[in-house]
């Protein structure tokens, strides 16, 4: 699979549904609707 180009300003942020570290389900659309959101991706500790 070829790597996708990263999102740019003006793009629609793709929806997701994922668990957070406490086990709660989080959706992109719900997070964004509650107010602008900073999404911070980090490499993690594996």
């Amino acid at each position: 699979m070829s790597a996708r180009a990263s999102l740019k300003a003006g793009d629609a942020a793709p929806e997701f549904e994922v668990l957070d570290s406490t086990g709660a389900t989080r959706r992109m659309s719900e997070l964004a609707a509650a107010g602008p959101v900073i999404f911070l991706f980090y490499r993690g500790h594996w």
Partner: protein
Amino acid sequence: MAQYAELWEKIRAAGGNIVTIAVDPPERSEAVRQQLELPFAILCDVSRKIVRDWGVFEPEQMGGIAKPAVFIVDRDGRVKFASVDREAVRMPAATVVDMLTSSIQANQDEVKRRAILPRFSDWARAIGNMLRFGLRSPKV
């Protein structure tokens, strides 16, 4: 992340939010969150779906991890600001948070402007009516 944690109150006071995303499993991320006393959520993209969809997947590293990246997403779900890799790492948290708060302020100004405009049109209609029908004083 610690830089952003220090700005948490400012972000929340402005009506914004911050969430972090890594491919680590929940136990691992929760340990990090508690150790660093992070006030925000860490999303656990174990399947790598988000990092792929958002184009920040680093497949060569350890089974595939997230590239460092910062996105500001507006209420309408659109990306307002994007920064990836070294640029994202060098971006001071305060700069990103300022962009978030000024974007919120701009939106609020827009809402206020729209709230004022109908009043202007009411005035214009009132003046138009006055010119057409003359001034009428209310009959007591």
